[in-house]
């Protein structure tokens, strides 16, 4: 069995407009976030992955299936899209139930699975109401229920937290984590960077239809050589430590924290800094904590794409 989602030299053009270009990706299990500004190609990538649009060039494989085989692909894949339209006249329950009947499930099993999915997104009370009367957050949740209803191995979620209140957001994040913990592939697109940072095992950064970076966020950060790594050190004698740090060639800049109980170090080689830690400790400076200050998605996004459209 093929245990990856693979894009090989995939391009998609809408007429003369570029969707994505020359995408080569391998997505492992866990939570993968697609990050990029509006129009960067996140939704196109998801639509390509689910066969809703066909690549102009290249090949996509989702585990064992090709994307032009919906009959088998959607048995292992659930997709919660950003399209906010539903078949007319359906209640929330009917929406999920009909989807399962379309999948060929019998009435009893479809009903059981539909209720289970609706419970997972906490929409049981509103399930018998017409979707036309749902709020944006409820519509988002019923789409999630549909995508989750058949326990897919691959879950593709386009901006799944849009329209949700803080409580619902944390519930959904917990749901994504538990799904990923069971070995599923959870692919999420988002432009809310602090949420991406919290939930992602790996990120794919997109800009203008190109993949700018991919992998675990720390690895991606480490590969950005042109921006020095920032490290926050909490210690008892920050001025003394700052003076000592300038003895090392990799140190670029040091600034003392205003509470005089720490400093921010900029280094061009974080690995060498960590190797020198023992030396510093032996010099008698009491170090309370050391934490990277810019190996989060937000910083990586700013370094690689810019911060115009990032939502913190």
């Amino acid at each position, binding site marked *: 069995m093929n245990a990856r989602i693979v894009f090989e030299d995939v391009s998609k053009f809408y007429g003369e407009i570029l969707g994505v270009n020359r995408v080569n990706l391998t997505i492992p299990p866990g939570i993968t976030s697609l990050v990029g500004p509006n129009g960067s190609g996140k939704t196109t990538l998801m639509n390509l992955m689910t066969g809703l649009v066909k690549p102009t060039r290249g090949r996509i494989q989702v585990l064992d299936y090709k994307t032009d085989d919906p009959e088998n692909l959607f048995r292992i894949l659930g997709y919660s899209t950003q399209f906010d339209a539903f078949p007319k006249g359906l209640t929330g329950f009917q929406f999920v139930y009909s989807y399962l009947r379309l*999948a060929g499930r019998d009435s009893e099993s479809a009903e059981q699975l539909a209720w289970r999915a609706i419970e997972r997104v906490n929409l049981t009370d509103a399930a018998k109401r017409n979707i036309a009367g749902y709020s944006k957050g409820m519509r988002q949740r019923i789409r999630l229920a549909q995508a989750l209803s058949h326990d897919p191995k691959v879950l593709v979620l386009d901006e799944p937290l849009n329209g949700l209140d803080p409580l619902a957001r944390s519930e959904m994040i917990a749901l994504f984590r538990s799904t990923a913990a069971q070995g599923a592939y959870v692919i999420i697109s988002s432009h809310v960077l602090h949420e991406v940072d919290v939930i992602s095992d790996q990120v794919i950064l997109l800009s203008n239809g190109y993949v700018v970076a991919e992998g675990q966020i720390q690895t991606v950060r480490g590969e950005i050589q042109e921006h020095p790594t920032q490290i926050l050190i909490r210690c008892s004698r920050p001025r003394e430590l700052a003076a000592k740090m300038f003895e090392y060639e990799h140190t670029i800049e040091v600034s003392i924290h205003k509470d005089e109980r720490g400093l921010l170090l900029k280094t061009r080689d974080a690995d060498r800094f960590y190797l020198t830690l023992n030396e510093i400790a032996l010099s008698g400076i009491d170090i309370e904590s050391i934490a990277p200050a810019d190996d989060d998605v937000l910083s990586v996004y700013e370094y690689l794409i810019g911060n115009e459209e990032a939502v913190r």
Partner: protein
Amino acid sequence: MKRIWWAQIKAVIRLEMKKTFFAKRGLWIYLVAALPVLLFIAYAITISSLQHQSESVAGRGEKSLTYQDLRAVKTGMKDQEVIAILGRPPVRFHWSENRPPETEKGTSIEVQHEDYHYSDGQNDLFVGLADGKVVSINIHGFNSVGQDSIMFAGVFQFFFLRLAIFFGCLGIFMNLFRGEILDRSLHFYFLAPIRREVLMAGKFLAGLLATCTIFVTSELLQTIAFLWHFPPSVRDLYLYHNHGLEHAAIYLGVTLLACVGYGAFFLVAGMLFRNPILPAAAILIWEGINPFLPGVLKQFSVIYYLKSLCPVDIPSPPGTPAVLALLVSNSDPVAAPIAVLGILVVALVALYVSSVQVRRMEINYTTE
């Protein structure tokens, strides 16, 4: 066929039924299907009322007349001869006419006209007399199934088939995919683990179920309304001894085949074109010019086969221009089995094109 495909087709039909039967934008289809029924009901009411008058005229006559008595009157007879055969007319009009002189120097001539109205209770005889001589005879029967069945055939071929079913199928089948794209809800189906061809088959069958239900019901009601005003004896004679039942069954069959043929045409048109007006106009013109097309091209049409299956030929009235006569009569009919097979082949070709097209379809609402 895999069992799961059939389950999926049933699921698609269940979802589509509500949309095809109860959509607000489809209400006009019911109206179009009801129009010929209303026409035949109005006709039946009118004929019943005239028949009532005719019976009243017959009751007021001096003699109890038969159809043969009415037929005995000939042009050129004198008024006294007519009265000798039929008795004094129960309804009589008298009027005079001043005819202009035939030459410049001549004088005008006054002509005395009389109109006699007799009836045997089922047929009216109108006799026109000028200066005491019969100049016109007009017998009108209320129970002429033959004449009425030609009228029925005319309404069926020229309104029901070419317009009602044509536009009804356009409204339902073109919306099966196009309507979903406009509503931005097609992705719901495309995200399900269902073969696109199975989805297409489910949608086609749902459309077929809707159009067949609407138009077969209309056709049945038309037949009932058409036969309503005839006395039971005439009705039985027509139905059981004069191919009436056979004709009714054929009309129903032709209705079903029309839904299959036009349905398949409009299904594929709905996938290929964004604007339904263009393909609808093109197909309407293509079907309209069918009698003038060469034999090979005629075969790629639905109306060509349907016309061949219709049980009653519509005679062209005398003096009809040859071009119009070609439209009315079926100059080049095909045998019934070939006609049925022809429609099914045309429908299958259209469905094959649809199945290729549905596999290529992408969800890209913004460009629609």
